[in-house]
């Protein structure tokens, strides 16, 4: 069914169809519309879930953990400080092997109070054991949320999945949305380690130096196994519903001499920049990274790479640039742009490509650094 929706509404629509038994959430700008819409679905009876209006994000994730371990489907949504406040519990959720799905609306971190788009929030969760996907359109927000449940709950994965969408630039933008007749695309959840009072077990007990690493390795093994589950799920989604997704979305990359790599809406804006650059005779391409964890194998050999980071790791560099350099061993032109919702147009992106200085870093808008 075709409709017009915001990114937030698209996520809520997908949650309604995935029908988690428990949703525990706490409002935060610019995510609030997701939980409001989910609460509305629950209130109207369209969604047969229990909505727990917790008193904090730390409790939101703790409640999802407590619900999930009984073997049922769970969902929550957050953003920025909310995500940071639940950081202790995001680690717990992954460590406890719970397939919780969370939408994170990417937003800057204080101070100062800035409610606009930035990826540093989700990237600070990079090492928690969550799978992370970044979307760029309203349609993709919906599709990725549906797929997130199937991937998280797959018995070769059993890890939580975070769906990231840019604050305001996507959360509050209206675009066409084609909803699907889900059918049995998401199979019923079966959690092999669900609590069973007839077979009592201790969960997360004291674990010594001779054992802890085994649990950590098990997370990594499943993270590696998740690659084929993601591939299968995206393939099955394309087969059933006609929309194709990969680990990256490549645009004009095959003959490109310079490739722009970015996350989220910046990656989509880069496609327009590519068109502009091609008209000028610059063989540009765009490789929008969709999955950050597990981090895909990127084929950037022989290409000049311009990475745009809407985030930063102080004392080191753009987080995405650092990841790409580590993975490809290729030097990149690292552009820091879009921090705290800073406006970045396709013309700006084309400018980054024209003026690229491979091996260097460039902060967009900082005088003396242009």
């Amino acid at each position, binding site marked *: 069914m075709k409709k017009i929706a915001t990114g937030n509404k698209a996520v809520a629509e997908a949650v309604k169809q995935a029908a988690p038994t428990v949703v525990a959430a706490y409002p935060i700008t610019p995510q609030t519309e997701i939980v409001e819409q989910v609460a509305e679905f629950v209130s109207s009876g369209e969604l047969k879930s229990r909505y727990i209006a917790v008193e904090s994000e730390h409790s939101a994730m*703790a*409640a999802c953990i407590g619900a999930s371990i009984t073997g049922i489907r769970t969902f929550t949504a957050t953003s920025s400080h909310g995500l940071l406040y639940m950081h202790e519990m995001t680690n717990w959720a992954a460590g406890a092997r719970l397939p919780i799905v969370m939408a994170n609306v990417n937003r800057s971190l204080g101070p100062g109070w800035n409610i606009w788009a930035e990826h540093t929030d989700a990237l600070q969760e990079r090492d928690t054991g969550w799978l992370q996907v970044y979307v760029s359109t309203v349609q993709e927000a919906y599709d990725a949320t549906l797929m997130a449940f199937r991937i998280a709950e797959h018995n070769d994965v059993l890890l939580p999945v975070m769906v990231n969408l840019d604050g305001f630039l996507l959360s509050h933008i209206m675009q066409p949305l084609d909803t699907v007749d889900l059918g049995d695309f998401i199979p019923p959840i079966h959690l092999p380690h669900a609590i069973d009072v007839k077979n009592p077990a*201790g969960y997360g007990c004291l674990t010594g130096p001779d054992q802890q690493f085994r649990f950590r390795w098990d997370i990594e093994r499943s993270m590696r196994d998740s690659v084929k589950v993601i591939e299968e799920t995206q393939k099955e989604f394309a087969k059933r519903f006609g929309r194709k997704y990969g680990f990256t979305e490549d645009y004009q990359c095959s003959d490109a001499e310079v490739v722009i790599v970015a996350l989220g809406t910046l990656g989509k804006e880069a496609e327009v920049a590519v068109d502009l650059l091609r008209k000028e005779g610059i063989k540009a391409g765009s490789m929008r990274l969709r999955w950050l964890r597990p981090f895909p194998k990127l084929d950037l050999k022989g290409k000049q790479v311009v990475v745009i980071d809407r985030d930063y790791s102080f004392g080191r560099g753009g987080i995405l640039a650092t990841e790409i350099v580590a993975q490809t061993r290729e030097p990149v032109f690292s552009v820091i742009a879009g921090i705290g919702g800073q406006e970045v147009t396709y013309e700006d992106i084309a400018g980054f490509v024209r003026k690229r200085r491979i091996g260097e870093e460039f902060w967009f808008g900082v005088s003396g650094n242009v």
Partner: protein
Amino acid sequence: MDTIAEIPKEEFILKCTSACAGCSDSLSLRYVLKAAGPDTVLVVPACCTSVIQGIYPNTAFNVPVYNIAFGAAAACASGMSNAFRAAGKKTNVIVYAGDGGTLDIGIQAMSGAFERGTDFLYICYDNEAYGNTGMQRSSGTPLGARTTTTPAGKTDAKKDIDAIAAAHDLPYQATACAAYPQDLFKKVTKALAVRGPSFIHILAPCPPGWRYSTERSVEMGKLAVKSGMWVLYEREYGKLTIGPQSKAAMKKPIPLEDYLKPQGRFKGIDPKTVEILKQRIAKNFAKLAAEEASS
């Protein structure tokens, strides 16, 4: 229930726990689980009970135990209870948390879960300090008690968590102590019979923390009640009933010194501080008596 023989013989705490000798936390939990029975899940934040249950891959508890981060127990239980009820299961969800996990770091999650009417039982076993990390002061530590972070004795009074819990208008709330096992058993049974949130606050004398010899834990609990440092009561839908043991203490308490003297944590306590503690006991007695008379 009048005699201990009426308490079920079935044990849910198996042999070989990692508890200290004379631990009244595990003694309390023994009676809690006897009252709760096998259709029960314990949610345990960081506390002595995280250690007592044993080391992976073994567990000494014969009910499922979900260990969770320090400040998260009530929120975790909130999700669990909702999930069980959504599935039509009546499984008891019991938080078993220490005073640090309740009065301090977990108070927000507990207040939230109470306010939302979560169908669960929150039990705080209170040994009046952070026992698991070696006895640092908590907001449950009484005035004058020495801990490793109050080496000269605590200068602040014990937080009244029961008044805070009562402010949530709970269907059932009680205080207890393993020195009175039948009373504890009855209170847990009652708490689990109500729908919605309930709270039981158990005084848990702790030999290494309070510095008394290990065979005296039950005696220490009785001295606490007889001196009025601990009052046994229950509040059912707002109606307060003071237990007969505490009624007797209100009429004629034993000298407070009888409770303080055997404990190393009160060694060298300033007589002025003892006087303040006595005044607080009298004030608390009067407050509870007035509430009982009016309810």
